[in-house]
């Protein structure tokens, strides 16, 4: 799967990098930064799904 973050929607709640620290990081202002490019490695898929399911702004989509 691939992860997409809509930076127009991201408001820096920080749930993604808390729950999926190997998939997301925080920039200096606390907004999401994607750490993986292309497909998410299988072992990180669960993290990515947790981030998607806990983003209050629905800014994260998995395809």
């Amino acid at each position, binding site marked *: 799967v691939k992860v997409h973050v809509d930076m127009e929607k991201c408001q820096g709640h920080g749930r993604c990098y808390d729950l999926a620290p190997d998939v997301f990081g925080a920039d200096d202002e*606390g*907004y999401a930064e994607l750490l993986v490019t292309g497909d998410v490695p299988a072992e990180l898929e669960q993290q990515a799904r947790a981030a998607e399911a*806990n983003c209050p*702004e629905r800014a994260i989509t998995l395809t």
Partner: protein
Amino acid sequence: MSTTETDGGGSYGGSPFDQMDAETARHPQPSYKLMRDLMPVTRMEGLGVLLAKRADIDEAFRRPELFSSAMDAVALQNVRPLIPLQIDPPDHKKYRKILDPLFAPKQVKPLEEPVTRLVNDLIDGFGDATEIDFSQQFSVPFPSQVFLTLLGLPLDDLPEFLKMKDGIIRPDHVVGKPRDDEETVAYQRGIAQSIYDYFDRVLDEREVERRDDLLSRFLDTEVDGERLTRHEILDVCFLFLIAGLDTVSASLDCFFGYLAEHPEQRRQLVDDPSIIPAVVEELLRWETPVIGVARVATADTEVGGCPIHKGDHVMAILGSANTDEAEFDDADVVRFDREANRHLAFGGGVHRCLGSHLARLELRVALREWHARLPEYAVKPGVELDYTPGIRSLDTFPMVLG
């Protein structure tokens, strides 16, 4: 409703929840459900339009140009808008660009050690007591001490601080007269001035000599080559005082009230402290310490078939959004193993609580340190906890330990 939102303060003025009865304030969730089922968008005379559904609240948060946060400044006797809460985009962005980095996880993380110490010092202060007042001895002083530490102010200023905080947020309690009574308003106005004066004095000191604290950083921060003016810094400090203290106290009151009354769930976290972050999120969802946040419509519009007029106050009932069965499976069950939890306890959209990362740190550390030392406690038998409406805090929380 009172609200503390999001960037911070919200409108702490009169609110529909001022009339909330004690049982509803204690367990508001069934009332939220009634609102969602019977009147998900409802106009209440003199109060504005209440939004109870998650989907409608999402919509309002995503359209700050239509649902403005620039509330009239008078409710708290602040003489200028609070920054950044009462500033709309595009100016809002400029302030968040300055403030977000100061409250980003990277900056907050180093506070874990002093915060841990503050929690333990407060618990040490209980001595051998088998009965304490959780509110007076823990949930009230703790966030204020964190705040003083963060701003580089002496802990000795705590009493002065609590006086300013209570005087501005609940002057009616302090004076013993209604909120709109002349005497109450005069008192609140005096307190507001003392807040400006207090921070003005400290900022004068920091102008002369910088320290490693937030106030010093405010003086030197630049955005687009511009520094914050003294007024702007004061308007940020004013907001911090009303937004950063009461909300964490209320969260602790709600959390410990819940855990005191649900010993089996308490034991889950005592046995496995690794679930504490999930416990914090689930109790933020279920309890929603800040019941709602206020907006004002900038044009005629409509939500869920209900007309909203330009100038109408619109109240997003966060507690209802957080228990909306359209969003959450088992919405009325408290589950620490919830896989999807998109709660809005810190608000949403551009005004998302600036202090949310700090608040989460304080709540997690408090739960962790407390339960490692005091796993057994209960509400004192015979006592019913009386939550204040709006911000669900407790004036008194008699607790038996052991």
